[in-house]
């Protein structure tokens, strides 16, 4: 079930576009914002609300890599794996994260704290390597900083 607040926000997005369908990505974002991901049930709720079929909406949802159709941890780590970070040795960061969190890409830590995902370019190539946790951007990363950074997220 969509909450009143979610409906209110979706209604606002719908008011800006010619047909409710056109607001479907915004609606998915709203739902993901409150649940962390888009479950099958949420997908169906959104689909009904904007007048799309589940298949039609899932077609859109699964196209975009930042609509999560599987549960994620409380915090999502997006590690840039693109070219500047590659040149600047992001792989050390990656390996350290694998080791510290005991997960690989696409997995969530056993305590549900982190999900680790690779990400293409965070647009901060002059400060490579970089990663984002939730809305926070970390640049000029070194392996040594990771403990301190991860500690901030519970």
């Amino acid at each position, binding site marked *: 079930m969509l909450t009143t607040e979610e409906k209110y926000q979706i209604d606002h997005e719908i008011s800006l576009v*010619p*047909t409710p*369908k056109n607001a479907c990505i915004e609606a998915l974002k709203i739902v993901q914002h409150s649940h962390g991901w888009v479950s*099958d049930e949420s997908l169906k709720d959104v689909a009904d609300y904007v007048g799309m*079929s*589940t*298949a*039609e909406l*899932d*077609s859109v949802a*699964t*196209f975009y*890599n930042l609509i999560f159709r599987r549960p994620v941890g409380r915090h999502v780590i997006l590690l840039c794996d693109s070219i500047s970070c590659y040149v600047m040795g992001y792989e050390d960061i990656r390996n350290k994260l694998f080791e510290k969190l005991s997960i690989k890409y696409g997995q969530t830590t056993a305590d549900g704290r982190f999900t680790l995902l690779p990400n293409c370019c965070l647009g901060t190539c002059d400060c490579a390597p970089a990663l984002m946790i939730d809305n926070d951007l970390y640049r000029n990363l070194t392996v040594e900083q990771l403990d301190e950074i991860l500690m901030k997220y519970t």
Partner: protein
Amino acid sequence: MATIYIDNKPYDVKAGKNLLEACLSLGLDLPYFCYHPAMGSIGACRQCAVKVYRDENDTKGKLFMSCMEQVREGMRVSIADLEAKEFRAHIIGWLMTNHPHDCAVCDEGGSCHLQDMTVMTGHNYRQYRFDKRTYINQYLGPFLNHEMNRCIQCYRCVRYYKDYAGGKDLDVFAAHNHLYFGRAEDGVLESEFSGNLAEVCPTGVFTDKTLKQHYTRKWDLTSAPSVCHHCSLGCNTIAGERYGTIRNITNRYNGEVNGYFLCDRGRFGYEFVNSAGRVRMPLVRQMLPEATDKYTALKATASALKAGRVIGIGSPRASLESNYVLRKLVGEDNFHHGVSDTSHDLVDLALNILSEGSAPTPTLQETEQCDAVFILGEDLTNTAPLMALAVRQSVRQKPMLEQVSKANIPVWQDAAARALIQSEQGPLFMAHYTPTKLDELATKTYFNAPDDIARLGFAVANLIHPDSPEVRGISEEDQALAQQIADALMQANKPLVISGTSSGNERVLKAAANISHALIAREKAASISLVVPECNSMGLALMGGHKLESAFEAVLNDYADTVIILENDLFRRASTARVTQFLDRCEQVIVLDHLHNATTEKADILLPVGAFSEADGTLINNEGRAQRFFQVHATPEEIQESWHWLAELGTIMADEQISSWQGYDDIVKALTDEIPALRSIKKAAPTSDFRIAGQKIPREPHRFSGRTSMLANINVSEPKPPQDPDSPLSYTMEGYRGQPPSSAIPFFWSPGWNSVQATNKYQQEVGGHLKGGDPGVRLIEPIGTAPFSVAVPQAFIPLEGHLYMLPLHHTFGSEELSNQAAAIRERIPEPYVTINATDAQRMKLSEGQLLSFSIEGQVYQLPIKLSQIIPSGAAGMPNGLPGVPFAELPAWAILNRDIKWKKQPQTTF
């Protein structure tokens, strides 16, 4: 026209087309995947690349996708260019990086567009040496098999299913090379047109699941041109047989009727032919054993006929020829239509409107081109599915005409056209008593009782032309809607009114006729399309005959004592009590049919007849088009067409005319000589003596295998091939290898084109008419003599203690024959009765509870479905569903509030 140069040869091609269409229409081989003539171009697969040169001095040229390039005067193109060829081969190479090497076990093998295109491009050796991606397949219901690993991501399936057919539950998921085409989760595909995916898919992702159960390669099928028997539209089909069973139905392109598509009832309904319920031996009840041979049965029948006073009951699901020979045998005065009296009158009225009215009736292809549609009292998706599919295209006409052409976007630029017109749709108005699947496209929907639908229709007609009577006492709201509809129809270039017999209300038909008449009077290029109940309802109406009730009376009043019932289950035509009374009263009941049913149970003599695939005949569809269907394979002598049985009986009984007939052609000749309205049916197909270069048209491809050994387990000596005296088709692979006349195409094949895409080669231009004209002959043209009808009904008034029971139709469940097909049976809904939710509240009834009511003495006990839509005081009940006894609907149902339903044996579900 434009002149273009392809590999330095000049060709005249139609301007405005895309280059791929132009090349294919010229008969040139150019490979493609994502383009489809019915759906246009999107430029996704990149398979149809050609070199295009700036001018004659340009020697380098540049690769272009021919499907995305509009033909320009003087254009210089090369298909043979080495770079273009290499690129096209690489496209296959890329597709093959993931396509499995499973042709040998793939159902598509041998009729696979991907195979054909692979051979065409010359891609022979795989360079790719890495792993292929694999997918998990889905359960998609009883009709289609899903094998995603074979997918080449051409997007045709989703473009067809979603964009063209309006399906909601199939889409493309994910991105890059993880694309997945399927449903959001496992489950039955909801669209009534899902089966076309098997033909739309260029390879074996979606394949016919019913075929899989008795699989045969296309090249091993004995096939013949057929006509669908499962509704009144007469879609052209190809039926394929091996070892005496029908293996599949595929589309037979007819540019004016079904085009490239069939509905699922038409594609999967065929399995009744193979069902255990078939009548395979003659039965003479007074003998023991009852099953007997052909000659004994003929003798018994002949003596029964000689002894009795005989009447005949024809059938709208039997061919014209069979009905005619019955009429001949029993005499015109004793020939009755085997349909309910309401249906009889309604089809007569429909015929009258089409022949004496002023508006022509459109082909399905013309229906797609109409730019404003008003549908009165017809749930097309359930009564005439392909017409619903045509209407789905028609709502795109107005934006296509107004916006797309204005923006200079060619109509075949499918994605661009859709991006431009977005969700805008042309006018479509729906007036019905329950929701229909087309409602989602409607500009406005109007839900009310049939009489009120008629009143709305009359109001529209009156607004268009004052000579059409006005409707008194109409509400302001309805009048405003009538005005909106009238305006939309008047503003359109090609307005279309659609109605039909399925709501059982003649006023609705008359209102529809008045609207079309009014539009014509205002000099609009209007047309009217009417749906009738069955595949040969219109043929029966054109032939004429008495009503069923008069047959009953003839026997009950002792004017007759013997009846011949032709391919008809009378228990679907009149109440159980009435039919039982009638049959019990007959001295001799002689039934000809191919499936056992309640009527055959009552037969004293039962003669097994050929189903559509074992018979030659002519049907007349709802537009008055006579179309010939051909026997697919030879049958044992006990199974033959009804007209064959009846003609043999006539001969035994020394009927002078019947005795003189030598075969099918003579029957057609007698029929056309005798009935002027049917004079043209002989033009529907060539006669049996037609030959090309002295040869017959083979039903089997030249690669047909096992001819000499198919029956070797029974007898090692090869049997003599069966002969077909009734048609120009041969039962073997011998015969003329070129293209047959358009009405007699047993399968589509052309060198290098083994899949159904070979259809291109049979068309005058790709997606256009078949060479030699599309099959079928129109028998009806409007003469415009009918005046405006003045039969404006009163508004519907509910009746205390009653519900006005309206018929509800189901694609799967309402049609007699397809109900016997295993796959279709899985899709038939449970019986129910729909009542208005407010009424239910008042009567303290809830969803799922059993409602007891009776109609004309027939007691029903059905679980309730609540509807916000169905008018108060009315109710709906599924028509023709197994387990729901017949009632002539609409009718007033008496509510039996206190009935002890367990004591009522009549309810059979």
